[in-house]
């Protein structure tokens, strides 16, 4: 059998090799290098040893950002673990019009986070729809400052992330539900188990592996949150810059005359340390699924 010339594979692979080296491996190495310098967004920079890491230890804003990330994760996890599963169970049965509902539920996923955050800003402002309706229905006597309190801002951003993520995880669950045994459901039904009981004792155990995948995905995306907080706080990070995320800090130090790429890179390394565990787990789970 005739084999190809030795360079043919490398011709085909050429662009991918260039991109692997220039836009994937080199930036990874350079992040480590930059973290030990005082490089600026407009150029320059020299070796400064551990200065950036020492600075991290005394950075109050970083503490706020990390606390915010933990809260973000803890609130997002249960909500995004179960709400999308409920949606998937609703969509599972092939009723007329079900494709329309599936597409509609997915729409928030394909919208840009900027678009959604601006919609949220309008919904949640003092005279917006949410405050208006809540007052109309008697839940509130005066508007809640969703967009100015430190914690309210954080929870508004979380609600946005959850809402935007519903459709994404719903689709993942939907394909997993196909593998849950129908016989088990029928047997449980014959034994007199109601729908809620069967959700907990048949559906949930049946999608166990997928739930693990979803929780890792949610964890990683909670640690990477940026756009929601940036747009809802109009780039300020909320009152006193306390409603920031780690990525927001990285972005803040990457721009303009006051920027500090060295410190931003040190923060990036911190982000790597936090996310590498879940990312490795994700890679394993995906390979197992494939």
């Amino acid at each position, binding site marked *: 059998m*005739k084999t190809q010339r*030795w360079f043919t594979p490398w011709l085909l692979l050429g662009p991918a090799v260039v*991109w692997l080296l220039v836009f994937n491996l080199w930036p990874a190495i350079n992040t480590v290098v930059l973290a030990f310098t005082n490089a600026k967004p407009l150029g320059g920079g020299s070796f400064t040893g551990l200065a950036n890491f020492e600075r991290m230890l005394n950075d109050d804003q970083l503490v706020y950002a990390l606390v915010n990330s933990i809260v973000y994760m803890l609130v997002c996890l249960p909500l995004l673990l179960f709400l999308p599963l409920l949606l998937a169970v609703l969509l599972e*049965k092939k009723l007329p019009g079900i494709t329309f509902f599936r597409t509609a539920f997915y729409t928030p996923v394909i*919208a840009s986070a900027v678009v959604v955050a*601006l919609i949220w800003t*309008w919904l949640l402002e003092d005279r917006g729809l949410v405050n208006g309706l809540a007052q109309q229905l008697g839940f509130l006597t005066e508007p809640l400052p969703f967009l100015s309190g430190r914690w309210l801002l954080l929870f508004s951003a979380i609600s946005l992330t959850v809402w935007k993520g519903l459709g994404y995880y719903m689709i993942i669950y939907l394909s997993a539900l196909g593998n849950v045994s*129908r016989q088990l459901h029928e047997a449980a039904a014959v034994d007199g188990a109601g729908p809620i009981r069967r959700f907990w004792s048949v559906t949930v155990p049946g999608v166990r592996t997928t739930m693990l995948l979803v929780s890792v995905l949610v964890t990683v995306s909670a640690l990477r949150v940026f756009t929601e907080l940036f747009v809802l706080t109009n780039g300020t990070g909320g009152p006193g810059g306390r409603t920031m995320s780690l990525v927001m800090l*990285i972005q803040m130090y990457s721009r303009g005359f006051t920027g500090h790429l060295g410190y931003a890179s040190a923060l990036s390394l911190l982000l790597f340390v936090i996310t590498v565990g879940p*990312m490795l787990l994700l890679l394993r789970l995906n390979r197992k699924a494939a």
Partner: protein
Amino acid sequence: MTQLTTPPADAPAKKPASSPRRQRRGSGFGTMRRREKVLRYVLLLLALVVTVGPFVWQLSTSLKGAGENIYTSTPQFIPSSPTFENYLRVAETIPVLSYAKNSLIVAAMAVAGNAVGCTLAGFALAKLRFRGRTLFLALVLGTLVLPVEVTIVSQYVTVRSLGLADTLVGVALPTAVAMLNVLLMRAAFMAIPDEMDEAAVIDGASAWQRLIHIGLPNVRGMLSVITIFAFIGAWDDFLWPLIVLTDPQNYTLTVGLQYLSGAFTANPRVIAAGTMIAFIPIVIVFATLQRFFFRGVEEGAIKG
């Protein structure tokens, strides 16, 4: 395959034993009880209000004229006299058409780069034997552990040193050949049975001919998936263009929108119109190509 027999909420114990058997041949909803069906539709509609309602509210706000009170305590979803004046105001405040053009240019580069670069690489990795292949694959897999945000600072340094800071090419370049898409295309090519290929090799076909005549026709599904994802990813992206672009003339739509809301916080109607300009094109792309979408997600094209 998608059968979940849920009896009505209030009468689970009375389920007739014969009903599951009748459902076996697919026609699930034929035997579903009326009450369950009604309950399901009620819940579906409720979920629809939650997921789509905010978009409708924004669209409605964008169509309300300056004379209409948008703060009324009873929300008015239908504008009393719909108008496009807010859309014109957007265009007066920011160069929205050129922002849309910029977004489109970036998205087009992302689509072209991924379609060509990832297809060629995927084919070579799946169908050709050569030294260095395992090493290359291992490195590609290794990059997937890094969230983009981790390398975004040094990525900016790279783009700056290439002289591409504050350019659209600089925005598009880093993800123009995405490693995840290389792996997805490789998986698609690997699904083609080797027998099909061997016949062509015996007939003396070159690697190039095998790619064009046997490979491509069989990976169209995955190819459309990665291009759709590349388009939407580029169109929706915010953080990276925000870092690369400094001159307001060069902004993409998402960055321009944030700029608009900063400059124009006073008028929600105009911001609403701006968000619709960014949102409607992507909805059209999505609605047209959605069956590829869902197939792609089911095949595991999950972006972390």
